[in-house]
């Protein structure tokens, strides 16, 4: 089959020859270069290949340090010394060598073997056989076995106030000890990765860049050439908003208890204290100690109770409900309900913890009168309550800069229908109105909900980061709740009476003369009740918001006591003014 192409096709006859000429010339160039490499300098390259004991000696980067708001070091890298061998060098004499080292230096041969197997990366990469020894010991070993061993220093993470800040800082682990998934993301096996807390959240800033020395050694292991160095780059330092002195006081105040203490700047959202009890020592993970005391502890010290679990909130719901009632014009401050010690709904009695008589809003908040809020709850209805609680963020994350934050839960009639295929009863509304039943919130989310009363109606995204290196962290995100300022002031006044009135449920805090306002909460559970106190001070223009949560603490009295101890010590140490 041929095509008849219109017109004559002018074809350059030289093309065919030209193309072949070009190919021949270029191929000749390649052959010439090949000739010069393989035949001209062939024996030179062969020697280099035979002696190509090129070693990469890693230069580990340092992770950035972590400081508190006053520049006190919380975490930093320290040098640790390891002894390493090159697998290709000791191939045949491995067992003898290990036996000798184990005998001379009284180290179990089992451990040496285990370390060797664990740290074996490749034929020409150093493998640590003795880890974490002091410099003196390392030098001694090196002297005796100069031919086979060398000192392989590596940075090690150290937490200087371990128990205070364990949940905040988290800890690091070598990528090799984690699941294989990290390899996929290009982590090198010896690279340290933050796997909890700030170490995880800001890992990309904290981690540096590893470097290495490329050296050439001969068959005997003598260095014959230095091919180059890539310097390690240090990671960035982080400054937190935490005050480590206050953090220490929080730990003392919660000693022997389960729970959390949070102290934050009411307006900026900076977290000054965030402590969860019981705590753990993150250095255990670094040093490879036995972790049974952490993992098998039935009080789950690894859980950060302030953000990783949610609890029923009890009476802490009352100021939020009061605001809802005022905003929806269902009540006025002067509106009263009569408390006869109980509320009767059909055949059921819903109790109050005392008989308060006629109560207006201020009194109801000060006395934490259940009957008042049963009435208010029924007037508002479950849908409206549910919406208001969601508005205050009780069922969402606070987006604090820590990993693994959990959400709370706000029930609604629709949810109950879908979940249990049951209708929502008026009894459910009554339970919800005093913060019982299905409602749950994390201590931090609860603190921020009350904080929005302190700062005049803003739900704040809390933050732990103050500076990265020299760079200030960005201001936090504030969400205006669009609540009438007057209504906020009414509730604020009510919360002040909780402390200032002689019959108020947190009256002992009056002795601090910090002008604390706040709300107590006792949340009943199947076990002992949880105790809560969330408040802010000074009353007129709040600067600080504080929360104390005691898991199974018995009652709010304990929480208020703890708050008293905590704030009193802060005051004595001039940490708050």
């Amino acid at each position, binding site marked *: *089959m*041929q*095509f008849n*192409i219109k*017109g004559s*096709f*002018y*074809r*350059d*006859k030289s*093309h*065919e020859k030209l*193309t*072949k000429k*070009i*190919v*021949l010339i*270029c*191929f000749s*160039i*390649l*052959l010439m*270069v*090949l*000739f010069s*490499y*393989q*035949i001209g*300098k*062939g*024996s*030179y*390259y*062969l020697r*280099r*290949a*035979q002696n*190509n004991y*090129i070693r*990469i000696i890693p230069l580990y980067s340092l992770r950035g340090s972590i400081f508190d708001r006053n520049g006190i070091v919380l975490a930093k890298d320290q040098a640790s010394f390891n002894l390493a061998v090159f697998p290709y060098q000791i191939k045949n004499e491995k067992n003898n060598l290990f036996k000798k080292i184990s005998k001379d230096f009284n180290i179990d041969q089992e451990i040496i073997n285990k370390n060797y197997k664990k740290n074996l990366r*490749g*034929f*020409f990469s150093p493998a640590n056989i003795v880890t974490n020894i002091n410099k003196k010991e390392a030098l001694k070993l090196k002297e005796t076995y100069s031919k086979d061993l060398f000192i392989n220093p590596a940075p090690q993470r150290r937490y200087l106030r371990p128990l205070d800040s364990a949940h905040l800082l988290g800890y690091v682990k070598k990528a090799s000890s984690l699941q294989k998934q990290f390899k996929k993301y290009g982590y090198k096996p010896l690279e340290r990765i933050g796997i909890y807390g700030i170490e995880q959240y800001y890992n990309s800033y904290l981690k540096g860049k590893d*470097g*290495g020395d*490329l050296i050439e050694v001969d068959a005997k292991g003598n260095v014959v050439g230095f*091919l*180059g160095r*890539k310097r390690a780059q240090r990671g960035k330092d982080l400054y937190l908003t935490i005050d480590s002195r206050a953090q220490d006081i929080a730990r003392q105040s919660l000693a022997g208890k389960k729970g959390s203490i949070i102290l934050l700047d009411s307006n900026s959202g900076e977290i000054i204290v965030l402590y969860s009890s019981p705590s753990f020592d993150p250095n255990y993970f670094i040093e490879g100690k036995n972790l049974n005391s952490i993992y098998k502890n039935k009080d789950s010290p690894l859980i950060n109770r302030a953000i990783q679990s949610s609890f029923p909130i009890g009476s802490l719901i009352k100021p939020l409900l009061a605001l809802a009632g005022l905003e929806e014009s269902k009540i006025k401050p002067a509106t009263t309900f009569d408390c006869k010690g109980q509320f009767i709904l059909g055949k059921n009695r819903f109790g109050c913890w005392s008989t308060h008589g006629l109560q207006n809003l201020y009194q109801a908040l000060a006395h934490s009168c259940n009957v008042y809020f049963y009435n208010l709850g029924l007037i508002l209805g479950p849908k409206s309550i549910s919406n208001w609680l969601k508005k205050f963020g009780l069922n969402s994350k606070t987006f604090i800069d820590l990993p693994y934050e959990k959400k709370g839960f706000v029930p609604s009639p629709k949810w109950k229908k879908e979940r249990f295929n049951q209708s929502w009863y008026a009894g459910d509304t009554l339970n919800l109105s005093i913060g019982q039943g299905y409602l749950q919130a994390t201590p931090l989310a609860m603190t921020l909900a009350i904080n929005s009363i302190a700062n005049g109606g803003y739900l704040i995204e809390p933050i732990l980061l103050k500076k990265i290196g020299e760079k200030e962290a960005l201001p936090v995100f504030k969400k205006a709740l669009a609540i009438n300022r007057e209504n906020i002031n009414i509730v604020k006044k009510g919360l002040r009476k909780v402390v200032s009135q002689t019959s108020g449920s947190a009256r002992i805090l009056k002795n601090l003369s910090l002008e604390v306002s706040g709300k107590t909460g006792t949340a009943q559970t199947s076990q002992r009740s949880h105790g809560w106190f969330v408040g802010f001070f000074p009353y007129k223009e709040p600067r600080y918001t504080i929360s104390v949560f005691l898991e199974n603490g018995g009652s709010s009295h304990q929480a208020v006591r703890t708050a008293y101890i905590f704030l009193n010590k802060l005051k004595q140490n001039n940490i708050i003014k």
Partner: protein
Amino acid sequence: MNFLKRISKEFRGLKTIVLSVASFNLISITSLYSSLHQQGQFVGEDFISKQLTWIAISWIVFIIFNFINYRLYYNLSFIIYTFGVVLIGAVYFTGHTAMGAQRWISIGGLTFQPSELSKIAIIIIMARFFSHSPANSFLKDFCLPFSLVGLSAFMIFSQPDLGTAMMVVLIAFCLGLFSKINKKYFILVLAGLLITAPLGWNFLKSYQKKRLTAFINPNVDPLGSGYTIIQSKIAIGSGQIFGKGFLAGTQNQFNFLPERHTDFIFTVIAEEWGFLGSFFLLFLYWLILKKIFDKLKKIRDPFAYYLTLGIGIYFFLHIFINIGMTLGIFPVVGLPLLFVSYGGSHLISSFILLGIFFNISRNYN
């Protein structure tokens, strides 16, 4: 029987190519097998079976393209070009990232690099433009075709894949030099590129910059890009005349050489089979290129003429630049060795082009 006779007649003179390419398949698998050893142990079963699949697919594709009349591409050239550009665009949305670059589209477990296809599209559309004569208009005959090349190259470059982008431009440029377009246009553009090249530096990714500086001085980054070139040279040189023998290449087996089964497969061959092996490899390539360029004098259709030239140029550049790269003559840009490197996209593309050439060849016996 008549049919078979006709076929065998049409294929006369093409047997050399078929045999050479089949040899390359064999060389590819054996050197792949060797390069996938680590300290004497074979570690790459998946790779071998995948590559065998690709080779089988490639031969089927080759046979199909054998029977597609090449004039079809003349009519479809704009559609093919647009399809190529759209595919590259599609990588942005569905593509799968490997080593910091987004180049692959995944089809049922096998991944495919659409930028390879656009090399073919460029050859076809350039052949169409250059087949028109006379070609005196600067805008219509020079600017229009090369702006299409520019668009393709830019899209590939932003994936980012500097090697393929440069290849697209280079193929079109070389092909253009054989066309009837006034040569001074090319000189003009070349001068313009040289002047603006320093500006282009800013658009390169950091790893591409590193590779280019390491090419100029490998010791700048001996642990990184320069390392590959140093090790490649040691490996090739140490092969000497006869090579170290199959599976005996110490350089490649002890992990000294990264990417040795893809872009640096030639290094493995040169180390294990020495100068003689390298010479034989180049000789096989020469046989194929000679057959292709020999055909030029018989072709009567300008479109087929430029298509054949383009295919020859494509093959030649892939051989020359890849081997030159392993020898340190060219920077490491990430370019497979024709018919030999591990990977399916370039293999299929090469076989498609070979199929097109066979069809042309049979039309002008």
